[in-house]
């Protein structure tokens, strides 16, 4: 069988919970070419943001992604603080880091469960999501919400953590260690998981750098990039933790990196709790405006560095807000890793970068590769739509609407 066929993964597919389209060109079971088509879910967040005040913007970017619902707001408020030179109380920094790390644990557990599901290992899926509930409970204790926390604001956080709650939170996060250890052992020792993931979808260090891979995708390829360490923010320079890396860059290593990172996250949370016991004071500097200027905000989201840029003209709204999510850099690495693999491996490789499409979405423009001209613009789409209506009218024999649009 050397006939080339296309195995579509998407636009709606059991593998991914979001609309995206991977066209696997296969010969037999072997993938020989990959087309990545995104842009099904473009929501115009950046433009929307320009019509919101700085406080509202945080709530807007929180809804970019349901999983990174602390990463985007945190990067966004840091950008606003950078632009307006807004001070942040120290206590707020620790609360920010704590919520961020809890989010990382729940996101990694979510990925682990999905990865198990993609391998047909549904027990891992159910167990990982069962223990993820515990993390969400802690988050609910701290923020009042399971997923969209509404914690961040320029100048601090919205809710303080009561001193009396700290021991309970500490013991809850201690309780996360055993399940995570169990998952670590299950992955590291299971020979069948080795058979399915070791040496599969290798992204070399050179290629990780060339593609600009971020987060666990890069760290699994022994490329120690972590914006928490490289560009300290929140409380990450005040606590002791390590950047986890692996050697080979295959799917197995990507899983191991994420599992080990959860232990680091628990370490950070424990230190934050200790610090919060000592540090008092306000959690919000309550800025009244963001001075004119521009600022950038980084945050190491569970998938890699999320980047926000904000320009302020001294009014209460950003005049430019730019967002770049980590999947935007990580998804293209699939071209390196999927081609040459079999269809069976392709699915787990595609999932191994932990893609998040709603974060990544950009408006898609079809461009003729030879002439460089746009193939379809808005006028063309309206024309096509009108032609179809005309065709329907002609076929049905009805009068139909009169279309006053210039064609």
């Amino acid at each position, binding site marked *: 069988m050397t006939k080339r066929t296309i195995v579509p993964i998407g636009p709606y597919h*059991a*593998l991914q919970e979001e609309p995206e389209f991977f066209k696997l060109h296969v010969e037999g079971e072997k993938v020989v070419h990959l087309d990545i088509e995104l842009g099904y879910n473009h929501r115009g967040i950046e433009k929307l943001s320009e019509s919101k005040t700085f406080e509202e913007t945080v709530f807007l970017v929180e809804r970019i992604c349901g999983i990174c619902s602390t990463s985007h707001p945190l990067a966004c408020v840091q950008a606003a603080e950078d632009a307006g030179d807004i001070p942040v109380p120290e206590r707020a920094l620790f609360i920010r880091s704590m919520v961020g790390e809890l989010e990382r644990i729940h996101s990694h557990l979510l990925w682990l469960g999905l990865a198990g599901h993609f391998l047909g*290992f549904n*027990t891992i899926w*159910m*167990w990982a999501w069962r223990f993820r509930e515990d993390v969400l409970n802690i988050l609910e204790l701290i923020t009042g919400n399971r997923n969209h926390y509404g914690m961040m604001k320029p100048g601090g956080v919205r809710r303080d953590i009561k001193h009396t709650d700290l021991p309970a939170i500490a013991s809850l996060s201690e309780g996360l260690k055993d399940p995570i250890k169990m998952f670590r052992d299950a992955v590291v020792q299971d020979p069948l*998981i080795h058979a399915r993931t070791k040496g599969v979808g290798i992204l070399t260090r050179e290629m990780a750098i060339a593609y600009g891979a971020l987060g666990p995708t890069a760290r699994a390829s022994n490329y120690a990039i972590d914006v928490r360490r490289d560009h300290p923010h929140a409380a990450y320079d005040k606590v002791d933790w390590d950047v986890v890396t692996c050697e080979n860059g295959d799917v197995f290593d990507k899983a191991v990196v994420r599992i080990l990172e959860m232990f680091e996250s628990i370490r950070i949370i424990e230190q934050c709790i200790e610090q919060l016991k000592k540090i008092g004071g306000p959690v919000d500097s309550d800025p009244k405006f963001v001075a004119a200027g521009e600022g950038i905000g980084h945050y190491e989201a569970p998938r890699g560095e999320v980047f926000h840029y904000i320009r302020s003209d001294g009014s209460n709204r950003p005049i430019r807000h730019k967002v770049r999510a980590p999947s935007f850099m990580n998804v293209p690495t699939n071209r390196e890793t999927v081609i040459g693999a*079999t*269809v069976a491996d392709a699915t787990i490789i595609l999932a191994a970068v932990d893609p998040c499409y709603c974060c990544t979405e950009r408006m898609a423009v079809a461009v003729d590769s030879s002439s460089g001209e746009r193939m379809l613009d808005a006028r063309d789409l309206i024309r096509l739509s009108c032609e179809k209506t005309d065709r329907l009218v002609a076929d049905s024999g009805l009068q139909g609407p009169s279309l006053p649009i210039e064609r």
Partner: protein
Amino acid sequence: MNGNMVIVEFLLFPGLLFTAIAGLLTAWVDRKVTAMVQMRVGPPLLQPFHDIRKLFVKETCVPEGGAIGLFLLAPLLGLAAVALASMILWRALLDVEATFVGDLIVLIYLFVMPALGVMLGSFASRNPLASIGGSREVKLMIAYELPMVLAILVPVIQAGSIRLGDLLTAQPPILSVSGVLALLVSIACMQAKLTIVPFDMPEAETELSGGALIEYSGPPLAMFKLTRAMMLFTLPILLLVLFFGGLLTGPVWQRWVIGFLVWFVLVAITIVLRNTTPRVRIDQAVRFFWGPVSVVALVAVVLAWAGW
């Protein structure tokens, strides 16, 4: 026995209707135990029946440009074959004398039919994902049939007969080394025959979104699901007859209790395997069955020959 009785036996007991009900109950056991392993609550007892009933009242969509006749007949093939296989097995269990020479050979052929049905259906549905699923099913079948037949040879050699009645009255093979090896091989092959994890790559929901069955809907899909459930009920009975046949002695209640316990253990092994392994790739499965499994099966046959 006259012809009418055979038809009644085929359609009601112990054929189609009985096997379907028992199969769906087994499917419930599978789902409930799976749920318990996964820390879930699991479905109520009648859920599999509701699922099948609902599928039967749904619309049947046929793919454009597919071979429609074959597409619709393929599910019937497997269903009829499993019902017939179950009938032959149960008649042997109920009355040792009611068997005929060579019924084991017939059974081996009948148990190939469901996989054949899936293959025909997938290739008739003219869908790239279905044809990948179908080709995986072919490869998988080629892989597991060899060790399966070798494993079945062990009880045959020990009893010196290819008649189920003789296997049921002979010394049970499970008490010998070769019998234990052959049973292990058969359990691996059973997992593949049932196409459940780790050998569910013909369907592989997350890779091929249903693969071989992707174009099926309504009653034909219900028939495939029913066939799958009936296989889950019937295949452990085949292993029970082959390897534990001679244990089924004594008063009637004792035979039923022993039989049920062994059957349940075999089903439980299947369910536990399915919940503690990831799906393997098709090349890994073929290597597994033609490599270690076939070698073990061959060793078992040689040992059986030597009287071990």
